[in-house]
Every structure is written in C-alpha cells, then in structure tokens.
C-alpha cells in the first residue's frame, strides 16, 4: 500500500485522531497493514510484546486461560480501538491472548520502533502517552466493575 494511504488510515484511526502532522510521518514509519483470519491469534500470553494494533475491522477477544474453564474472554475490542499495551513497559511480554473472533484488519505498529521514536522525541512520547493513559484508565475502571461482579447474586 502506498505510504500516503497508510498515513490516511493512521490519521483517521480514533487512536491517532488529531495527531500533529510532524508526528504522523514518524509514527507511520513503524506501521504496516496486517490481517488475521477468524481464529488466528494476534499474540499469545508470554510472547514478546512487540506490536501495537490499531483495529480497523473485525473483533478481537482478549482471553486468559483459566484452569478447568478453558479460555475466558474478559474483553472484546473492535474497530476504532487498540489491542496491546504491554509493549510500553518492561519486560515487554503479553499477559493474555488476543484471538481474532472474525477476520480482523489492523495497522500493526512495530513497538520497538515506536518506543525508540518516543524516546528520541519526548513531545511525540508525551502525545502517545496522553492517548494511551485514558485507555488504560478506562480498562482499569472496567476491570474494577468486573472484579466486583456487580451482577452476581447480592447477599440475601
């Protein structure tokens, strides 16, 4: 795909919405189009966290294998959202599985490339961090609700 097309896709994805033009070229240098068929894994728990995925189409199940229960899906992620945060912090290992529930098209960002550029240009790093932190916060809030099991049976 032409670089211009990739830039347009990245610019239009909600995660990078409003990204300064000067950063766009830097970010796109780490990006490529990827596709996963239904059932394929974007990554597996324990593997190297080397990608950030911007989902363009399809739905991804984030799963953890629970003893005796098989894979338990704790979140699904769809078009306009991102998959993969573990690439931000050492030891850069995935802490869950990500499985394509249907055909998934995404932009895969090379995490090492992105981290390096963020380190080299802290303005870019700060911008990326400001985009990631609200997502982390939303997921933390969601996890709190799930842990509380609010739909579970109340005390009689």
């Amino acid at each position, binding site marked *: 795909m032409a670089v211009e097309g990739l830039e347009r896709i990245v610019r239009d994805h909600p995660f990078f919405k409003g990204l300064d033009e000067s950063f766009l070229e830097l970010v796109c240098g780490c990006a490529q189009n990827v596709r996963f068929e239904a059932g394929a894994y974007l990554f597996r728990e324990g593997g190297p966290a080397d990608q950030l995925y911007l989902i363009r189409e399809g*739905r991804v*199940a*984030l*799963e953890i294998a629970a003893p005796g*229960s*098989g*894979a*338990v*899906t*704790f*979140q*699904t992620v*769809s078009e*306009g959202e991102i998959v993969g945060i573990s690439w931000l912090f050492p030891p850069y290992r995935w802490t869950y599985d990500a499985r394509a*529930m*249907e055909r998934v098209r995404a932009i895969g960002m090379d995490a090492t490339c992105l981290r390096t550029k963020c380190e080299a240009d802290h303005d870019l790093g700060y911008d990326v961090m400001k985009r990631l932190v609200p997502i982390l916060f*939303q997921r933390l*809030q*969601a996890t709190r*609700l*799930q842990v*509380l*099991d*609010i*739909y*579970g*049976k*109340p005390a*009689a």
Partner: protein
Amino acid sequence: MVQPASHDPMVPQVMRVAQAQLDAPDVFTLKLEPEADLPRFTPGQFNMLTAFGVGESAISVSGDPASGDGIVHTIRAVGAVSRALTELRVGDSLGLRGPFGVGWPMEELYGKDVILLAGGIGLAPLRPAIYRLLAERERFGAVAILYGTRSPADILFRSEVESWRQRLDVDVHVTVDHADESWHGQVGVVTTLLPRIAFDPGRTVALLCGPEIMMRFGVQALGSVGVPDEGMYLSMERSMKCGIGLCGHCQFSPAFVCKDGPVFRYDQIRYLLALKEL
C-alpha cells in the same frame, strides 16, 4: 401517578399465576391475573408481592402496560420471599399491592434521543418503557438499548432482545462481563457500548437501571460524552416495605424511594449517591 386499584393500599388483592417462565438462572417471569380488577401501571412502577406465609417484596413490573392481559413481574431469587415467589407455578396464588411509585418520564422522552442503559436484572424494570418506545417509535429520536450482564447464560429476555435487535429503528447492543469461546458477541462492561451508538448528547435522555455501582459508572460515562445531569434518570433500589412513604424503610435522605421514586432524575439525587450511609 396511577393509583392502586385497591382502596386501601395496605390490603393486597389476590392474584393467580397464569404463566411462569424461567428467563435466566434463578430468574422467573410470572404473569399474574387478578380475581377482580387488573391494576393499571406506568413503566417503572412496582408492586409489593406477597408469598403467602413467607413475606412481601417490592418487585418492578416488567410487562407491557398496554397489554391489558395480566400483569408481569420478573423476579430473581435472592432471599426467602423472592425465592418463594419464583417457586410459584401456574394456578398458585399470591398477594399484590400496588402499583406504587413514580416511573420513567415517558412523555419527557418525546422528540428526544433515548438511551436505555440496563445491567443484569435491571432490564426488567426498563422493559415496559421499551414496549412503550417501540409502540410509539415515531415520537422519539434515536433509540438505543445498551445491556450488560454477567455472562451469556444470564442474558434476560434473550429471544425478545434478539427481536429488538433485528429492528432497523432501534440500536441494540449487548455485552457480558466474561464469556467462553462459544460467545461471539461483545465482552466488557456496559459503558464500553456508548461509543457504538449515535446520539445528540444535548437532546438525549438516558434511563438507567441496574446495580447502583453500574449506574454510578453509567452516569459518569454519559456525562463525559455530554449528556446533561438533568437528562439522566435512575431507578433506585432500597428496602421497601409499606410502598406509600409511611414506614421509612426506604428513606433516601429527604425522599422515600417507594413514593418519590423509584425513578429519580440524576441531578436531584447526585449528592446522595456519594453518601455511603445511604
């Protein structure tokens, strides 16, 4: 407010179970028929149901207010009374007082975009409002039903939710807190569904019903996308006994949930939701 059919609101009338249906684990829907007059109700109101020999419990009406064919309640077995009610079968008798309380502000929804945010068994008190919205669909703007529950097995009124989903004039999204690989739908908390719907926040009214924690997260999420506090209504749950604001069991600071609620406008109770003592 529609007045109870009985002249004395403390005297239950005897009802007979005409239909009993398992809707989810420990959740039964009972269709009740009166021996005398059928009580009329508005969406969001509740009745006090008596399991004879066990006790009385406040249960929201979950049926169609326009049907005129019995009165429907959806009950989750969580205590002695509710368990006894869910064990009733066709032909059994129970007591009913009501309807009581202030329901959903249906007339206020005319011309507005409407979001129904339901969690778990909270879909039941919203269902009468959904029937009304669908029956008068042309009178409202965009209508979205966002429903979150614990797991796919806990989805309430499943076939009905699927039929609503097939309509082209209602946006229906369902999510569960966790699922196995056989579930192909959304997993995550109900507030994550908000970005999936189109609405004009300034002319939106949201009706929320579910666990109080879910509703607190719900109003935060709605507020963050511009829905004003006075555009959100919550159905509150407290221990209701008399149903007419006399006994004080359900006192909610200056209000009684049974008489002044259970549906409250958010800006009028916002300060109360933060009080742990309530």
